[in-house]
């Protein structure tokens, strides 16, 4: 089955239930070859379930998926060859050392010595070379995560799916991984990234799907998504314990340590009007900041769900 220019991933009406629980209730979308795609959603949205179905680890109750035109059920061999998946769980084979594990994994895909230089390159790029002969057991969590990433890429798959590759990874390593993923993408690989760090998604992904309770809430380019809501944020600190006039109260989104954040409609409420209202009320301003809405604001709007997963890590990234 070779349609000219098939989608990197074509997902059609995929449903999956666990008993009563609908993990995926009819998910359909396509990812174009060469895209850097973000698959976002709160905990339990069904992201990993969808990825497992794409990888052939789980069977869908309904629907079909193809990878570069290869159906994952009928044409499973070709579909799996075209795909590299980094699982969310930190799984490893305690039996082998790092480089052997990677060579064995390459062998499963029919690749031999010709990919050994590529394996060595990945070990260097992922800063694992000093651990190449270490047993998998003896690696830290972050190192295991990187081996998982290398393992998914040993056969140089044209489509790569990373399920939270940067979860529990320190700031420096996260940057290493970003550079690594960007280079991969620059070489023409289709990259699908799942993450709870919305800034990461905003920074890296060209297009984003937000999954919630087994449904695709929205699928748009990152830019469209960010322009979706015509508002901006204004953060004020009022001088001498001044009080916000009642007319501005309805726009408050947060208030902390005397710093008040207002959400303003871009068109209807120019920032100047806030200043006017304050001047009329006789309140002095100590400090002022504006902020454009980021992915997190939009995410909260769409899913009614804060990113509670790793709030501290989010802060650390800013």
């Amino acid at each position: 089955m070779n349609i000219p220019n098939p989608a990197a991933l074509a997902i059609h009406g995929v449903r999956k239930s666990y008993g009563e629980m609908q993990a995926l209730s009819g998910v359909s979308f396509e990812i174009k070859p060469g895209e850097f795609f973000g698959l976002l959603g709160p905990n339990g949205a069904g992201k990993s379930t969808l990825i497992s179905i794409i990888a052939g680890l789980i069977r869908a109750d309904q629907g079909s998926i193809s990878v570069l035109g290869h159906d994952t059920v009928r044409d499973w061999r070709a579909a799996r060859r075209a795909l590299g998946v980094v699982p969310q769980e930190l799984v490893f084979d305690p039996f082998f050392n790092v480089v052997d594990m990677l060579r064995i994994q390459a062998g499963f895909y029919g690749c031999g010595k010709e990919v050994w230089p590529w394996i060595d390159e990945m070990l260097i790029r992922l800063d694992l070379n000093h651990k190449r002969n270490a047993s998998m057991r003896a690696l830290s969590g972050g190192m295991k995560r990187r081996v998982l990433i290398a393992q998914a890429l040993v056969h140089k798959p044209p489509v790569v799916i990373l399920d939270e590759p940067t979860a529990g990874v320190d700031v420096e390593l996260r940057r290493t991984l970003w550079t690594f993923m960007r280079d991969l993408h620059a070489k023409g690989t289709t990259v699908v990234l799942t993450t709870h760090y919305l800034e990461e998604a905003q920074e890296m992904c060209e297009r984003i799907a937000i999954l919630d309770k087994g449904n695709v809430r929205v699928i748009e380019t990152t830019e469209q998504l960010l322009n979706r809501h015509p508002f901006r944020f204004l953060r004020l600190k009022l001088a001498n314990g001044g009080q916000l006039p009642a007319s501005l109260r309805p726009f408050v989104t947060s208030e902390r340590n005397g710093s008040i954040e207002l959400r303003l409609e871009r068109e209807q409420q120019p920032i100047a009007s806030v200043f006017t209202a304050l001047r009329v009320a006789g309140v002095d301003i100590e400090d002022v900041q504006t902020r454009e809405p980021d992915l997190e604001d939009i995410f909260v709007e769409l899913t009614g769900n804060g990113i509670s997963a790793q709030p501290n890590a989010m802060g650390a990234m800013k």
Partner: protein
Amino acid sequence: MNRDRRGFVTLLTKEVRRFWAVLGQTVMAPVITALLYLLVFAQAMDGRAPVYPGVSYTQFLLPGLIMMTVIQNAFANSSSSLAQSKIMGNLVFLMMAPLGPWDFYAAYIVAGLIRAALVMTAMLLVAIPFVHLPIQQPLALIAMFLLAGGGLSVLGIIAGIVSSKFDHLAAFSNFIITPLSFLSGVFYSVHALPPLWFAASHLNPFFYMIDGFRYGFFGHSDVPIWQSLLWASGFFATVSAVCLWMLFTGYKLRR
């Protein structure tokens, strides 16, 4: 080498490396256990009447012990490897790879047979200087080895797939494999048994594997060789059917 072939060979190599790295546990230990049985029973039963004409008790015992060890180790090899990968979660690496049901089936059988052959060879090498063993029917001997070792490797795959805890695997081994292998006429000729046990033994596939294997050495056995071959083949075919059904449908492997 073509890509699909290389996938299979890699899986096979990985399975062999798994037990090869701990030969002390996977080959030496079972050989020593079996030889201890040989030593103790040969001493205790020394001087009893020959079981078959011209076959002493010690001679009679050795092939049975070898086959029992083959049975237990072929089973242990595939079952522990699969169960461990499943429980550790690293089975996903195999399940995501372009490896098919036949690759799994064949790789685990061949790996199990290689371990079983090592165990068998080691036992023969150690015992031969002390116990004279003729080889009257080499073809029967090889056939019984392949059917039993292969069949138990396949049963090991099934046990690995079904077990979601190490307890399950231990239960499989303790309540099925060990009792059946001990109650299979390793230590005695079933003709020496009371009628009920005699009849029960004839429902135990391991009995036929051991009896047929012994035939390969002495050209004598409790039941005709064709009957043992039939039972061993039937066992192999049955477990293979179940195992391949599991692998093709993804039973307990792909939810």
